[in-house]
């Protein structure tokens, strides 16, 4: 059993992440307040090392390790890279939140990295057992992260997240059990071969629907979407960045893999997913109009964008996967940019209420420029990457058949609504602020403002010449 070669070709990054988690856990017991700055650096170099280790993972032929429990191919490596980069940015952004509880910074980063570890496992899981365990590990990490912030609200948000998550995992597992009942095995590839011989029955359709609806929880699509508004408002902003990016990437990867083979057998599944994602897009965008709090607004926008991605995923063609990947990457960067801006505002103690945004355009123009570039990216206006990703997404939808055009028209209506509330935010910044002259203080944390400018720069650059990134996504998608 060459488990050593298995580890070296599939799990190197997970290994290094577990090492950093252990180190952090050990340090958290000994060192107290004085050395909490060190914890950030340990986490950062842990992620750096695992990023570096990505190079050694097996790319070309799919490598099945631990008798088909874990697999590694270009798609998983790419997604792992994306997860690690975004976790790197999250650690940078969460400096101030971590510092609130001095003695707990080590624990904070430890839990954060366990969440990252769990999502790395989710991506490379090849059977339902590892997938379920990894999912649960990720949810455990998120429970504590949400509950981290002082005050009662984060506790309530975490409790809501817990109850809904338990409910959705129960639904997901019911689906898995029925699937296991039919095929007799948990392994994706064996399930696939099983269905090559036998024709899929109604029970199969029900089980796949149960599984996908269960997975929709992390992406905040309609059956389990109500929690996102409360959790985004309740917990600390850097944790929101974590919730908004890492589980979303993992879920998209899992759904891509699951739907790749299961969709071909049951068209009811694609029907349900299409309808649900369109409903979520409508629900999220219309809900966002009335929101007075920027965080709740971004919650709706994240669930809407997840809906667009899942909608394109279900249209059966490899061409769509590259569009979803491109959309995912651009969305992640723009999202991190916007949240970095909010963290900058919180550092100079402005609340996240929308009317606080008045008059920023005149007091600090550069900040407004970067922030509006990211927001217009999310809305999909020309020069930004959002425009290209939406354009690429729509071309995929139209390419996969004329039957989807009515759906596309509905999506376009929701995008018009989204353009309203995005521009509303920017409009507020240009309104005259009658009270004080609001200046942004940077002295305590420089990293959020730097991340904001880099994300804005990336959105503009991808907006102007996206050819290379699209080539990468095409290459990855074609050999899933």
């Amino acid at each position: 059993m060459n488990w050593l070669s298995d580890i070296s070709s599939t799990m190197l990054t997970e290994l290094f992440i577990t090492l950093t988690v252990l180190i952090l856990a050990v340090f958290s017991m000994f060192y107290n307040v004085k050395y909490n700055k060190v914890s950030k650096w340990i986490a950062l170099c842990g992620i750096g090392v695992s990023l570096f280790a990505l190079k050694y993972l097996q790319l070309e032929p799919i490598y099945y390790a631990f008798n088909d429990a874990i697999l590694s191919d270009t798609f998983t490596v790419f997604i792992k890279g994306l997860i690690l980069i975004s976790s790197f940015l999250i650690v940078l952004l969460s400096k101030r939140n971590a510092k609130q509880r001095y003695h707990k910074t080590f624990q904070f980063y430890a839990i954060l990295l366990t969440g990252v570890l769990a999502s790395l496992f989710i991506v490379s899981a090849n059977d339902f057992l590892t997938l379920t365990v990894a999912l649960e590990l990720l949810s455990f990490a998120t429970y504590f992260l949400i509950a981290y912030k002082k005050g009662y609200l984060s506790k309530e948000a975490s409790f809501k997240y817990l109850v809904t998550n338990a409910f959705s995992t129960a639904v997901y597992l019911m689906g898995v059990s029925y699937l296991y009942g039919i095929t007799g095995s948990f392994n994706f590839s064996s399930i696939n071969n099983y269905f090559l011989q036998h024709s899929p029955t109604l029970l199969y359709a029900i089980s796949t629907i149960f599984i996908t609806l269960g997975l929709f929880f992390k992406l905040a699509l309609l059956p389990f979407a109500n929690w996102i508004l409360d959790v985004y408002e309740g917990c600390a902003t850097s944790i929101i960045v974590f919730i908004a990016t890492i589980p979303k990437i993992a879920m998209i990867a899992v759904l891509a893999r699951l739907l790749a083979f299961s969709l071909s057998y049951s068209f009811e599944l694609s029907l349900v997913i299409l309808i649900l994602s369109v409903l979520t897009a409508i629900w999220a965008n219309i809900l966002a109009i009335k929101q007075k709090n920027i965080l709740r607004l971004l919650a709706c926008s994240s669930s809407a964008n997840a809906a667009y991605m899942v909608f394109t995923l279900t249209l059966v063609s490899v061409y769509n996967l590259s569009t979803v990947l491109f959309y995912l990457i651009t969305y992640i960067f723009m999202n991190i940019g916007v949240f970095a801006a909010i963290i900058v505002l919180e550092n100079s103690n402005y609340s996240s209420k929308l009317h606080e945004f008045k008059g920023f355009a005149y007091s600090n123009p550069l900040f407004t420029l970067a922030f509006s570039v990211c927001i217009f990216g999310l809305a999909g206006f020309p020069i930004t990457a959002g425009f290209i990703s939406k354009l690429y997404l729509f071309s995929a939808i139209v390419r996969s058949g004329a039957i989807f055009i009515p759906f596309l028209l509905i999506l376009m209506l929701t995008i018009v609504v989204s353009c309203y509330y995005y521009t509303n935010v920017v409009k507020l910044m240009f309104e005259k602020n009658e009270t004080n002259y609001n200046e942004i203080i940077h002295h305590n944390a420089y990293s959020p403002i730097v991340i904001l400018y880099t994300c804005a720069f990336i959105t503009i650059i991808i907006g102007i010449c996206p050819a290379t990134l699209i080539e990468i996504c095409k290459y990855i998608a074609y050999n899933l």
Partner: protein
Amino acid sequence: MSFFAENLYTIILIPFWVSLLFAIGKLFGLIKSKKIVGILTLLSTFYALVFSVGTFVLTIIEKNYILEQTVPFLQLNRFIFDIGIYIDGLSAWMILLVSIVSLLVQIYSYFYMYSDNSFIRFFIFMNLFNASMFGLILSPNMFQIYVFWELVGLCSYLLIGFWYQKNEVSVAAKRAFIINRVGDFSLLSGIILSAYVILTNLNNTLNVSIPFSNISTISAQIYGCTSDGIFILICLLILLGAMAKSAQLPLHTWLIDAMQGPTPVSALIHSATMVAAGVYLIIRLYPLFSLNPIVLQIISVVGITTALVCSYSALTQVDMKKILAYSTNAQLGLMFLAVGACSTTIAMFHLTAHAIIKAMLFLVVGVVAVSLNHNQDIRNAGGLRKQLPICAITFLIGILSLSGILFAGFSSKELIFGDLIDGKHYIYLSLFLIVSFMTAYYLFRMYFYIFEGKNKFDFEIKEPHFVLNLSVSVFALIVILLWFVLPKSNNVLFAMISHLIAAFAVFTAYLTYSQKKLLKKIPILYDLSINAMYFDGVYHFITKSYKRFSKFLYIIDKYIFDGIVYFCTLNTKMISWFLSKIQTGSVQAYLAYSIFILMMSFGGIMLVYSLIMYFSEVQ
């Protein structure tokens, strides 16, 4: 002599450049003295007079001399619309008449308007009018007629609304321009319809708008290949355009409003030149109209009814210029009758005679009004014969000729009378005689009110400027001269009847002048006449209903098109309020919603699955 004909086109361009010069001068404030303005305009009109006399003589020497110089204005791959000049007997005659009248009127207006503070603006518009009138007369095809038709309409609007400070002047100008636009609309649609007919049926010709050089052949072809309905429609549309310009019955009220403008304007534009353009157009298109007798019938009916209505409503008018305006209307109706029933040459004679006489009458009225310091009411202007002798004499000459007793008016009316008898149009003849009776009546009534009896004003009248009297007397001279030039058919019958009618009319006029209360006896007829058969009421109603209609459309636009958009936004806001309300915050509510959606999706799947099963069995 042919030199004059060749570059006759310059008489169109020169007044245009002069008016442009004045406009730029006024814009940058370069014009210091009014003399230059006067001299330049008079020079340009004199230049036009010399050239038109030259061409007129040329047309008389060489029988049916025709010259056409055109340059393409719009050349799309198969269609050509060209601009230029076209000289034949008719246009030469018309050019001569117009240039004579305009020269004299401009001399008169130089002194008349000298005291006015926006003097330059007057002459900008005057020159622009000259240029467009010459362009209209010399136009070789229907396209150019339409081009200058609108320009002339614009100039008449500008000149009517010259004293724009007063509200009723600007309203009158607005109304005149709108009614002219109705005429332009019908003329344009007539042109386009005829072009369509030419194009679809005989698509060999390049020039799509009807050229006047071979008008007869083209009109024969048009008549040949179209059904009667469309042919009549074309003629009617063009006729409606001409009727709007020469103020025929349905569209005649603008001429009465045009009297708000300064008197030289009414003298030149609203009595001699512009209103004659409509008649000129019909004479020009006579070959086309004559092909179908119904069209000629319509023309003459329109003419005679306008003559009757307008002369009837002139009987009891009080304002000097209004009476003359109604009489112009009536005489134009007679010209239409002449074209419809008699022949174009007779119509031309009547046109020239009327132009000269009416211009003279207006100038005289101008002088009288100025001397009564701008009071145009005939009731408080009596016994001016002693103070303004020359005006009285010239006015008398004008009245005598216009009512067909002596001089030019007599000969032209005699020709009409003779031709009506030959053509055996007895109804027209009788109506013609009634109209001439009425004209004689109101003209002499005006004469008695203004020049007879004791003067009912107290202030001293200053002697008008000698040039005003000079130009008026020159006009009188021409009227007398014309009497000898115009051909005389000297049938004694007409001479006897017209003298009898005129004498009777003079007697009744004197009678009503001396006993004022005589008229009160017949109130209905009196009211009918004083407010001109309530046509003004009709137009007032039309404008009010147009305002209400546009308000109604605006309401549609605001509450339906905008309403839908507002409804959508309102709807989304309501749904978003509802959605945020059902986010109650309790976990159990969230789970209830998700279970509801789960059940819905399963229900849907079951339904779809059973449908498929059902359909697969059915085949």
